[in-house]
């Protein structure tokens, strides 16, 4: 048995090696180095999200001549908390999370939105076995009464807030008139997969993700069908943090806004970035566009 300590040492060598081998990632530490930390709410496939945000980071880096780092987060609410704590400089938020972050972070500014965000929509999908037929009017949402239904993330605008609002308009209280309580799948992609698998009979999600998935052929449209597209509402937008000018100099917020708005696809690189965002160009936005979201958020207890 005396050889056991040696064996233990040998077993732990790789562990120590890996601890020693990978140096600390200090690019994010401290606030003195001028790295612009951009982020986005985790509303879709993390690999695609990373590719999209890194493309934007590259664009902003060359447009503004600063280091830009993409910071991935796994949770909508955590993203709002990190913005409030000053750990994220610019975040591509959904309608609701943007309102939450702006209300919680004095000095935060609206920067821009995509052309598609001014008139964004959600789709309601149903498992084919339910036999729910497509319909054109909000009132048709009563078809989801007594079904097992899932939203996306609790904090999602297109996957929860607006769908819940439209369900209410149709007279369906998600708290009491579905079969059991509504699910919260966590992301738009997960909503599709769970409805396709029949775990839930119905669900609602971001129209953009739905279209991308059906175009890519990663949805079995024999098992899950689109039944309703909602009326439009204002959704995603970029917020800038209150520390931008302190860290990057006076006027930086405006420079950042300009850089975003100049992203119009005039070069192949810009084209590639916009394509990843599913947008034609970026456009200005203002607080008024999100008043309705804020109001609905208050009714649903998501904004206090």
């Amino acid at each position: 048995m005396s050889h056991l300590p040696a064996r233990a040492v040998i077993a732990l060598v790789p562990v120590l090696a890996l601890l020693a081998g990978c140096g600390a990632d200090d690019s994010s530490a401290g606030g003195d180095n001028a790295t612009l930390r951009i982020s986005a709410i985790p509303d879709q496939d993390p690999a695609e999200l990373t590719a999209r945000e890194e493309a934007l980071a590259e664009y902003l880096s060359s447009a503004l001549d600063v280091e830009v780092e993409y910071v991935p987060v796994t949770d909508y609410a955590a993203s709002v908390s990190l913005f409030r704590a000053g750990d994220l400089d610019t975040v591509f938020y959904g309608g609701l999370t943007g309102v939450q972050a702006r209300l919680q972070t004095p000095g935060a500014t609206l920067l821009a939105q995509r052309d598609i965000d001014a008139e964004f929509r959600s789709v309601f999908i149903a498992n084919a076995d339910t036999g729910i037929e497509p319909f054109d009017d909000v009132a048709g949402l009563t078809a989801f009464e007594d079904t097992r239904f899932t939203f996306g993330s609790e904090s999602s605008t297109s996957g929860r807030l607006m769908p819940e609002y439209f369900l209410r308009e149709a007279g369906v209280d998600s708290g009491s008139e579905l079969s059991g309580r509504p699910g919260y799948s966590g992301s738009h992609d997960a909503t599709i997969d769970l409805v396709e698998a029949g775990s839930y009979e119905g669900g609602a999600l971001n129209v953009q993700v739905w279209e991308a998935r059906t175009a890519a052929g990663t949805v079995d449209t024999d098992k899950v069908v689109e039944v309703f597209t909602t009326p439009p509402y204002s959704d995603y937008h970029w917020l800038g943090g209150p520390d931008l000018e302190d860290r990057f100099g006076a006027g930086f917020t405006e420079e950042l806004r300009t850089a975003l708005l100049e992203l119009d696809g005039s070069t192949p690189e810009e084209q590639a970035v916009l394509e990843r965002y599913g947008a034609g160009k970026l456009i200005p936005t203002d607080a008024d566009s999100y008043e309705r979201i804020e109001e609905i958020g208050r009714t649903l207890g998501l904004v206090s």
Partner: protein
Amino acid sequence: MTDLPRIASLEATGPAVARARGWRGRVRPRAAGRVWLVVWVVALAWSLSSFLGEDHRVLNTAGWGAFTEFWAAAARPDLSADLLRATVEAAATTLAFGVLGTLLSVLVGIVVAPFMSQTWWAPATASGPSRLLRAGGLLLSRAAVALPRGVHEAVWGLLLVSVLGRDPLVGVLAIAIPFGAITAKVYSELLDEADRAPYELLREAGAGRVTALAYGLLPSLLPGATSYAFYRFECSIRSAVILGMIGAGGLGLQLTLAFQGLQYAQVWTAIYALLVLGALIDRWGAHLRRGRARGRWAVSGVLLAVLVAGSVWHLAPDLERWFSGRTLELLSRLLDDLVPPSLPAGGWSELVAASVETLQMSVVAISLAAVAGLLVATVAARGGTSPPRRVLGWAARQLLLLTRAVPPPVWALLVLFVVFPGPLPGAIALGVYTFGILGRLFAEVVEDLDQGPREVLAELGAPPLASFAYAVVPAAVGRLLAYSLYRWEVTARETVIVGVVGAGGLGRLLEQQRAGFDYPAMTTTVLALVAVCLLVDLLSLAVRATTR
């Protein structure tokens, strides 16, 4: 080493003396055991029936495809160089959180334990007021650890993020706060159980309290304290994975991102990394458990020191941030937000309903874990004689390793494909995970048993199941029960982390309140969870006291 029944009794609510008095002697143990068994069966039936809903459908066969797709990927993990490099880095982060979290917990334990011990609060004089004051002090010190300990690491993590942001200290502190509290409690119990004669002698000779503790009590406490620290290390690694899932980084984060993108091959790379990490730590623990030779502890001590240094260097926490005005401002804002607590939107009825559901989930989960654990443990126990038995035993041990290496939220998402939504898939997910932990502990119990009676029965021609039922179960039942009850309390607290699938109970309520940043209501929900865990803890005490 990881003598869990003892740990369980040390971690349980209330001072040791109160526990020892307990309910013992009032009821005959056998009769009491039968009564508890009936209570348990009724509770389980009640919980299950309330989960089944109206149409009594449980299994969703249509989701089987997605479920098997995940398992099929086990055979082909993504082994590309880039991903492997990222995985090694992530494993280092998870390990570093575990190491530093444990270190801080043990330090807190050492510093705080004396002030929680009966030894410290023992009256020096017999005067009434002094006695009362000291009894009050003891009670107060015990109550002070109930809250930090009762709040799950994940909840601490989410709260700390809003103060410390992306600093790696969030992960370390989220582990160290609850684990530090429980370590302090256990160390104080160890202090109280130690032979106090040398301490008394030193005190009589005029030594101060601290000096007397250091020279009169400490030496005899070291082995127990070290064992417990290692057990905490195992727990810390598991917590580090969960914290990673909510954003702290490391293997938990990598696994979550891959899972969200349905990249099952990458998910399996992370799972295999967790398996390797888990197996290494198991080995280390088993190695320490098998002997008390000085050499072993010395080697481990050196390794630990290197690990600690490596962890600090790897995580590079930003200490400046601690003392910045901004942190203080964010902390005061958080506290401002959290108190005074308020009821959830649905009032008391919603809070009570969610608490009951949490309790039901924990009952279902621990029942599943204990029954399945018991069945598999007999196969998994080392010491099989025939080659097929050995292969089977090895397979069973890998199964247990796998089920506890995959974090509960991932189990929950997987179960959701094949079990219709509601609290049941959440409970099953927790049950499967706890099965991995309990099964291993049960296997250790079986290994430690005297094999004589079982062999005799087998030689007399009894079938394996019968020889197991009559020879193994009676001899081991006390420890098996203690393990199960201990994990029951842990499971009740962990219901909070399967909230990701909207499983139900207080975890689901907390997720909703978090989405709306309703901090006052979150405080209430967390307090309710602490209360449920306390109730479970007290029930466990009652069961153990009356069946001893």
